[in-house]
């Protein structure tokens, strides 16, 4: 089958042709988990607050503070329903009945026939999770507004997107330069997140060294820019770094090894586990990548940037010039198939 050639849109294609999405932690992005509970309609509304008091001391439902104990039901003869307890906390019963659920001490003639419901097991962390949860049982929600906006792909302003576009275009150009030299078609750019100044541009150089992935090349170029570094990439014209202006250089403590603090990385393809961990060690500020990779460690196989035990976490966004970045990778796969 002839692969459909997408037109290379290049720089004339505007920054409104792509959408950038956050790569959230598993907790934030996973589907709703439910747990079974018993509920019952409230027959006498006036008894509600007493019932609530007695029920919550009898069955505190610990760990489920996000669950509202009472819900309103539209179009029912009994407009309120109350959660009695979790099924796993309930006493063993032959037949489901209010008598066996509540001990004799609790006056329960204000409650109707109990029934089973599924309720959200965890507090919702994102608006999609909150909306999904609400279809089962109402919960409270402490909304992170930035996450909500980010999930709609609307976190960045048009001018921010325009500069992201420019930086990813540089990464794409570097990737192509590398690929013409027989390297994997991956490019990366390091930018000061507040200054917008480009610190380093690099591409994959693994033809020379199996670890010289574009990200590793960039990390070393950043070190070079500050009079450090372990390698020379001078034979590659597309691998460059900009030394800081002499006045700002003074302000960088010479002993500081975490040189990517406050920097953003743009990379055409999702970094592998080695590169992702190298970014943790380098204390990168944020990472933007174009397209996912099967072994990727910032969303696909791992989410190193949200890994609990690690001492540095950072924001990750995908989809910047996604189509063009994807094109690079798929073109490469075609080459590879020809090679072998």
């Amino acid at each position, binding site marked *: 089958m002839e692969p459909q050639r997408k037109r290379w849109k290049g720089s004339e294609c505007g920054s409104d042709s792509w959408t950038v999405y956050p790569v959230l932690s598993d907790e934030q992005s996973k589907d709703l988990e439910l747990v079974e509970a018993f509920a019952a309609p409230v027959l006498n509304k006036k008894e509600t607050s007493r019932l609530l008091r007695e029920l919550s001391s009898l069955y505190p439902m610990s760990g489920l503070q996000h669950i509202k104990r009472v819900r309103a039901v539209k179009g029912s003869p009994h407009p309120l329903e109350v959660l009695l307890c979790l099924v796993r906390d309930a006493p063993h019963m032959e037949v489901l009945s209010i008598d066996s659920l509540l001990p004799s001490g609790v006056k329960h003639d204000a409650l109707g026939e109990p029934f089973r419901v599924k309720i959200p097991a965890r507090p919702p962390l994102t608006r999609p999770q909150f909306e999904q949860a609400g279809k089962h049982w109402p919960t409270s929600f402490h909304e992170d507004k930035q996450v909500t906006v980010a999930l709609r792909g609307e976190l960045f302003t048009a001018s921010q997107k325009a500069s992201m576009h420019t930086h990813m275009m540089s990464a794409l150009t570097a990737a192509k330069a590398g690929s013409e030299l027989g390297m994997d078609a991956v490019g990366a750019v390091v930018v000061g997140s507040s200054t917008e100044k480009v610190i380093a541009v690099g591409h994959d150089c693994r033809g020379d*060294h*199996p*670890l010289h992935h574009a990200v*590793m090349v960039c*990390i*070393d170029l950043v*070190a070079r820019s*500050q*009079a*450090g*570094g*372990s390698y020379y990439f001078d034979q590659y014209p597309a691998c460059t770094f900009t030394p800081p202006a002499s006045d700002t250089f003074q302000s960088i403590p010479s*002993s*500081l*090894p*975490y*040189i*990517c603090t406050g920097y953003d990385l743009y990379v055409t393809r999702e970094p*592998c*586990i*080695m590169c992702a*961990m*190298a970014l*943790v*060690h*380098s*204390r990168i500020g944020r990472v933007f990548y174009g397209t996912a*990779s*099967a*072994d990727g460690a910032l969303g696909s*196989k*791992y989410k*190193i940037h949200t*890994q609990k*035990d*690690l*001492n540095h976490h950072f924001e990750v966004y995908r989809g910047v010039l996604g189509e063009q970045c994807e094109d690079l990778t798929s073109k490469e796969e075609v080459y590879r198939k020809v090679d072998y």
Partner: protein
Amino acid sequence: MGTEESFCPSEEEIEKWMSSAFDMARQALQNGEVPVGCLLVYNHEVVGKGRNEVNETKNATRHAEMVALDQLQDWCRHSNLDVRCVCERTALYVTVEPCIMCAAALRLFKLPVVVFGCRNDRFGGCGSVLDVASADLPLTGNTFKCVSGHRAEEAVEMLKTFYRQENPNAPKPKTRKE
């Protein structure tokens, strides 16, 4: 995979090379450096020997293992040997479990076996934080075998001593409140 599966250092080899790795770590500690000793051994010969070079290179990825892997490549070049063939029969001896990054690097070099002393609870890539050594990552080289726990307490002691000396460049260890 046949030859790789069967390649594993003997008890005596482990004893001998780990003892060299511990000597290196102790030397590093005496010089106020991260006390990690790390050797790559091929055919009874040390072909790579690394110490942490993060501070002088301002590159936070210059862990001892990464430095040793570079030396292995240089050694192969000088000896006119194919890196891949050498790596197939090379073992890494290191006093502390390699971090996630280094474990991935070892996979990319297709090293078959890593012998290490103590666990690395903060960054370990051979089971402590993640198990990169045996994870299913088809695009990231080969899995490798780990032989762990050799003189572990001694390795931990050296790390503790180092962090107590308060290297201003080193990240503080997680101090567990006791």
